Each structure stands twice: as structure tokens, then as C-alpha cells.
């Protein structure tokens, strides 16, 4: 393996990603130079250090509580960085189109598997380096304050190892997915596409969970009772090395450090073996059963009032949702939130008779948050996911309002299915008065419509149609704006109902009406913004 080639490859991948950004602003243009990110990372380290310094009392470790908090944070640092690195590399992988991956130059250049895996992992490290740098800078200031600089250095080193571990895990998943796709492609049929998507979502969600520090400590709690039993979870070995170091157990610290290094090497080796064995640079083509060609009539969508063109758009986008691997991260969101709810509240929180009303409602609310974000993200991605094929819509006789209605419905339909599951669980396990159930139903539904239309409004203003080196669907600014708009809008929608319960200011039915009116106002406004945004895109305002 040529280290120089791996580094060269990493720099080219980084260059392709940074230059792919579209920005006219000076800061945007500057960010297109890969070295900018490195300089930024280098600058952020002292900056984070200096920013934290004024908030601490002074060197010497005078505050035992701070020292305790700091040691706990530093114990979790390697696992957190592994999670961060894994999430970043997974999001990048799933947003890359299968065709682009297959025609990638690495498939035909004389680059070995090892060079590719290392190069790709170094790119991940490069992109997350500002966050790593900020964390290390801030924690160094705290290390001075607590007199634990040795802990900082040890934890930082293991943290970097964690970053590599997370990045290497991608290769394992990438190869497994490729293998699954190949096996399923040979079978063909519509069910294959659904199975492939379900497997991808589960794989993504599973890896996100098993790299989660909270989950890992809970696992230890369930099976071992104390942190001493954490040796059964290899991903916690770096944390155990730090813990041993803190306790002055140098043999333990050394043993767990070696084990951590071995674990990272195993992930790297596993990535190499699986990639060498299963990677096939061919476009993933699936033959489906013939589409039903008999008389279709108006169909369900026609019955709901959609025109033929709108129904065609909806069908196309629903197919996109279950067939494109770029959609995996979107679909994983509610699944991950459900898994997190299960972990946070315990697996039997919902049906345990000892759980109170608030606990059960909190459990369902966590899943609800996942569904709402899902609706928002699908709508936000609606225009941008057209990609370069958007020309098909621009040359077609389609009104902007028709496109907006279809896109909003595509976000709403699967979210409604998730919402229906939540309501069913509520009725089955939570119970309570019908007025409360009705109120939750109305507010939840309003939130879904509001989140979808808000997402569409932002997505129509900030779409990103580029598909290489990876599909983004919406610009960075759009993503931030959508999040900033959704949080207060959702909180203000829920607030009347929540306050009616907490402060008895309004009766629940009256509070529900207030919520509904507010959500409707936001929805109507968002819809108008969305239609004008789509109109602008169809008219090609850029020309």
C-alpha cells in the first residue's frame, strides 16, 4: 500500500467535494480551496481554547465537581468522535448516487483497495477536523483548569483513533450493501427494491445506534451492571483505557489502548477484505415486473382530487423515496428516533403498567419528533432531489402549484402512516380521555402539514440539483433555515395545548383550536412561498 497515493486520493476527494459547492459569496469561494478547511481547523483550536478560558476559575484543579464532569466527558470523547466520524461518512456515502459511485475513477485507476479505504477515511477525518479541533481546543482549556492535561492528551489520542474507527466502519457497510444489492438485483422485482431499502435503513440505523455512547452505556447497564463489565463491548475499550488511566491502573490503560488499536485495525482489515471481495463497479440495474397496464381509472390519487399530472409526479417521487439510496438517511430518521426512544425510556416503557401517562406520552413524542423531521426533510428535499433530470419538469407543461401540491403530498403520505402508528399506540397503551386523544391527533396532524409545507417552502428557494460528487438536495443555508423555521413554528403550535395542561389558561378544546389556527396560518404562508419558489425554478430564473 502506497501511503502517498492514499493521501493524494484523499486530497482529490476533498477537492471534488469542496469545489462542488455552489456559492457566489467571498466566504463560499474561499471554502472551495481544500487547504481552507485545514487552516480553519488549525485556527479553531486556539480559538476554542481562548473562548472557554474566561469561564473557568484558574489553573490548579480547585473545583472537584468540574474535575468529575471533565473526566466523564473525556471518557466519552473517543466514542463520541467515532460516532461523529461514522455518521459523517455514512451520510456522505448514502447521498452518493449508485451510478456516480460505479463510474468513479477509483474503479479503473491502479489504486489498491487499501489505498482507497485509507484515502476515503482520511477524507472523512479532513471534513470533521473543525469539530474535532474545536472539541480538543475547548477541552484543553478545561484540562488546564482541572490540572488534567495528561488525561486530555491520552483521551485526545484515543479520540483520533475513534475517528478512524468510525470512518473504517463505512467500508464494512458499503461492501455489505453492495453485496446485498448484487444478490437482490439478480432476483429482480418490485419487492427487491423495498427489501433493499429496508435493509439499508436498518443497517444505517443500527450502526448509528451501536456507535452511540448513550446506547453503549445502557447496554453495559443492562448486561453487566457496572462500567467494569464494559469490556464485553469492544467499542467502549478506548473509554476503559481512559478510565484505567484515571484510576492509576497503567497496566489496564495500556491493555485497553492496545485493544483499541487492534479493534481499529480489525475494522480496517475487515473493510479491505469485504471491499476486495464484494465491490463491483457496475450500475445497479434491477429488472422489475411489468407495471400494471390495465385500465387504471381515476385511482386513489384522482379520488383525492389530484390531476393526472400531479398523480404522475406523486407516483414518481414515491418510487424515488423507496428506490434511491440517497433517501436512506431520510428514511432512517424516524427509525433512529424510535430506537433512541426505546433506549432512552427502556424497551418496555409503553406497556409497563408502572409507566405513568407522561412517560408513555414522552415515549410517543420522541417518535413523533422523528416523523415530523422526516416530513420536513422529505419536503425540503422535494425539489432538489429532481437533480439534473429537473429539465424534464421544466420542459413539461406543469403549473408551479401542481408541482408544489404533489411534492407536499409526497412528504405527507409516508409521514401520515407513521403518525397513524403513533395514534394507534396511543390508543392501545396510553388511553386517557378522548378529548386528549382528539387534541393530540389534531395538533399532530397540523404539525405534519406545517412541517411539510415549511420544508417545501425552503426547499423551493434553496434547492441543490447537483448529483456529483454527492446529492445534497438542498443547500447548506436551506438546511439551517428550515431547521430554524421549524423549531419555533412547531413549539408555538404545541404551546397552547401544553400550556392549557400546565397552567390552565385555556380549556383543551380551545387551546387545540388556537394551535390549529396558528398551524394553518404558517401552512398557508409556506404554501404560497413554495408555489412562487417552484414557479421561479420552472421559469429558470438563473438564465
Amino acid at each position, binding site marked *: 500500500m502506497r501511503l502517498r497515493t492514499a493521501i493524494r486520493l484523499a486530497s482529490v476527494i476533498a477537492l471534488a467535494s469542496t469545489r462542488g459547492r455552489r456559492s457566489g459569496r467571498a466566504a463560499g469561494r474561499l471554502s472551495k480551496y481544500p487547504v481552507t478547511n485545514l487552516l480553519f481547523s488549525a485556527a479553531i483550536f486556539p480559538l476554542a481554547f481562548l473562548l472557554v478560558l474566561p469561564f473557568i476559575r484558574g489553573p490548579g484543579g480547585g473545583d472537584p465537581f468540574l474535575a468529575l464532569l471533565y473526566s466523564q466527558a473525556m471518557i466519552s470523547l473517543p466514542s463520541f468522535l467515532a460516532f461523529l466520524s461514522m455518521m459523517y461518512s455514512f451520510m456522505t456515502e448514502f447521498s452518493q*448516487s*449508485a*451510478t456516480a459511485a460505479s463510474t468513479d475513477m477509483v474503479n479503473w485507476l491502479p489504486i489498491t483497495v487499501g489505498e482507497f479505504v485509507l484515502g476515503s477515511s482520511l477524507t472523512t477525518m479532513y471534513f470533521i477536523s473543525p469539530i474535532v479541533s474545536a472539541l480538543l481546543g475547548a477541552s484543553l482549556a478545561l484540562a488546564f483548569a482541572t490540572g488534567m492535561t495528561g488525561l486530555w492528551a491520552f483521551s485526545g489520542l484515543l479520540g483520533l483513533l475513534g475517528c478512524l474507527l468510525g470512518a473504517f466502519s463505512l467500508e464494512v457497510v458499503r461492501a455489505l450493501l453492495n453485496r446485498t444489492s448484487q444478490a437482490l438485483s439478480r432476483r429482480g422485482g418490485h419487492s427487491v427494491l423495498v427489501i433493499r431499502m429496508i435493509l439499508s435503513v436498518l443497517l444505517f440505523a443500527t450502526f448509528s445506534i451501536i456507535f452511540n455512547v448513550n446506547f453503549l452505556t445502557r447496554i453495559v447497564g443492562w448486561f453487566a451492571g457496572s462500567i467494569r463489565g464494559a469490556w464485553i463491548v469492544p467499542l467502549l475499550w478506548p473509554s476503559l483505557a481512559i478510565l484505567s488511566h484515571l484510576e492509576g491502573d497503567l497496566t489496564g490503560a495500556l491493555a485497553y489502548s492496545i485493544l483499541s488499536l487492534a479493534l481499529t485495525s480489525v475494522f480496517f482489515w475487515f473493510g479491505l477484505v469485504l471491499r476486495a471481495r464484494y465491490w463491483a463497479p457496475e*450500475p*445497479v*440495474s*434491477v*429488472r*422489475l*415486473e*411489468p*407495471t400494471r*397496464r390495465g*385500465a*387504471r381509472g381515476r385511482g386513489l390519487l384522482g379520488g383525492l382530487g389530484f390531476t*393526472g*399530472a400531479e*398523480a*404522475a*409526479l406523486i*407516483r*414518481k417521487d414515491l*418510487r*424515488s423515496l423507496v*428506490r*434511491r439510496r440517497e433517501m436512506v438517511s431520510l428514511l432512517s430518521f424516524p427509525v433512529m428516533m424510535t430506537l433512541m426512544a426505546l433506549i432512552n425510556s427502556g424497551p418496555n416503557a409503553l406497556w409497563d403498567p408502572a409507566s405513568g401517562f407522561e412517560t408513555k406520552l414522552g415515549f410517543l413524542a420522541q417518535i413523533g419528533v422523528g416523523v415530523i423531521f422526516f416530513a420536513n426533510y422529505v419536503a425540503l428535499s422535494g425539489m432538489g432531489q429532481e*437533480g*439534473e*433530470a*429537473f*429539465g*424534464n*419538469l*421544466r*420542459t*413539461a*407543461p*406543469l*403549473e408551479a402549484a401542481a408541482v408544489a401540491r404533489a411534492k407536499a403530498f409526497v412528504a405527507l403520505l409516508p409521514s401520515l402512516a407513521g403518525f397513524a402508528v403513533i395514534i394507534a399506540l396511543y390508543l392501545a397503551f396510553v388511553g386517557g380521555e378522548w378529548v386528549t386523544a382528539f387534541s393530540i391527533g389534531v395538533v399532530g396532524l397540523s404539525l405534519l402539514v406545517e412541517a411539510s409545507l415549511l420544508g417545501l417552502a425552503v426547499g423551493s428557494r434553496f434547492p441543490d440539483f447537483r448529483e456529483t460528487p454527492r446529492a445534497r438536495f438542498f443547500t447548506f443555508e436551506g438546511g439551517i433555515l428550515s431547521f430554524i423555521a421549524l423549531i419555533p413554528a412547531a413549539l408555538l403550535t404545541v404551546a397552547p395545548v401544553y400550556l392549557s395542561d400546565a397552567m390552565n389558561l385555556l380549556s383543551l378544546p380551545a387551546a387545540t383550536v388556537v394551535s390549529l389556527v396558528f398551524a394553518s396560518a404558517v401552512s398557508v404562508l409556506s404554501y404560497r412561498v413554495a408555489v412562487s419558489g417552484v414557479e421561479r425554478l420552472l*421559469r*429558470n430564473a438563473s*438564465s
Partner: protein
Amino acid sequence: MEAHKGRAVVLRSVSKSFGQIQAVRDLDLEIGSGAVYGLLGPNGSGKSTVMRMIIGLVRPDSGSIRVCGVDAGRDPMAVKRLVGYVPEEPHMYEYLTGFEYLDFIGDVYGLERGAKLARIEELLAAFGLEGRENDMISGYSHGMKQKTAIIGAILHRPRLLVFDEPLSGLDPKSARIVKDLVHRLAGEGVTTVFSTHVMEIADAVCDRVCVLFGGEKVAEGSPGELRELAEMPDSTLEEVFLTLTKAEDVRQIVEALAG
């Protein structure tokens, strides 16, 4: 409306620039109904921009464009209903099968279901895609994608076809089908505007051609008229084209490259 009778496309003093680059300069064009009209020109001469302006994808900075009597600036939706377009690089929904893509296009143009399915099947068979229509487009070759895009463009029986390099990537049989199809449609009054770099095709297919250079029209007429215009009656259209676009002396370049 009456003023445009018999003319499918009329461009009047159309100009378009992209930043500092003047893509099209004060262009006047008149294309008769049922004509097969070729746009020729070297890379960057403005062919694609002209085509994209005709179908309403790009708005001109100045001048007017009428398609079948409809003002493209005022009623772009009406123009879209009249036009079928195949871009040079067809971008399609790769996660759909060929059939699903064409079904989608048919629905968007509001085709009646029975007629749509019959037409899709007829065109799939004509272009040799029968049996592959249920494969996802991601697995299609460039030529197959091109054929699917062409079928999508003619599915709704447009009155104006705009083809940007329509024959690139097609096998000889499919290229022949496209050429014959264009002629047959011309007989039915369908106008075709297409760009190509292959002069033999322009010579064989086009009633009239327009040579663009640096965003300006340098010559227009039938291939025979162009030969006369360039005072090269016995030359090929390629030689005439190279003369008109001031690129005739390629020998020195070839020698330098070979050397």
C-alpha cells in the same frame, strides 16, 4: 397569429449573454411548418442556447420568439405543450424503469391512458427497446437512454421537435429510424429543429440549415444554396462549413499533433 401562418418558429433580433459571454447576438430566424431545420456551428457557437430559448428554457435578453404563433415569453406553458425536446445529454430519473418514465411523461402531457400505452408500446418496439422497458434506467447504455428520451419527446405528438445532437450514441439502425421518423413527421406538418456536428447527417436530413458562429448567423439556406454561397459547388457540406466558420485549415494542426 395570422402573421405567423406557415412559420413554426420565428425569432426576431434575439440576443442572449451569460455574464461576459455573448452566446447569441441579434439573431433572426424563420422556420417553416413541416421543415427539417438544422443548426450547425462549432462548439460554443450558440446552437444549444438558441434551442433552449425556443422551448422556453432560457429567456432571451432581448428580442421575441414565437412558436407556432404563440409568444414564448408570454405563454411558455402553451409552447411546452406544442414542443418535444431531446437535450444533448438526456438526464432522466434513473430509479424509474423505461416504461415508468414514459408513463410519467405521458401523464404529465395529459395523454389519454389507452392511447398513451399503445403509443409507448409502438415506440418501444420501433426503437428496439421492447423487452428492456422494465429495467431501471440506471442500467441503460447511453444509446438506450437517448432512445428513451427521443420516445419521451415524440410521445405526445408535438408540433415542433427540438433535438440537440439527437443521433449521438445511437446505433446505425436507430439513427436511421430517427432520420426516417423526422421525414415522416415533416410530411404530417411537424417541424424539426436539430443541431448536429455531423455534416453528412445535416446534408441528408435537413431542408434548410443555419450556420452559427460566435453567436451570429453567418449563413442560411438549403445545403445546395450554402455550397453556392461559399462558391464551393462541388464540395461537401463539411468543407463548406469549415470555410464558413473559418476553420478550414486543419492540416497544420493535424501535422503538429502527429509530429
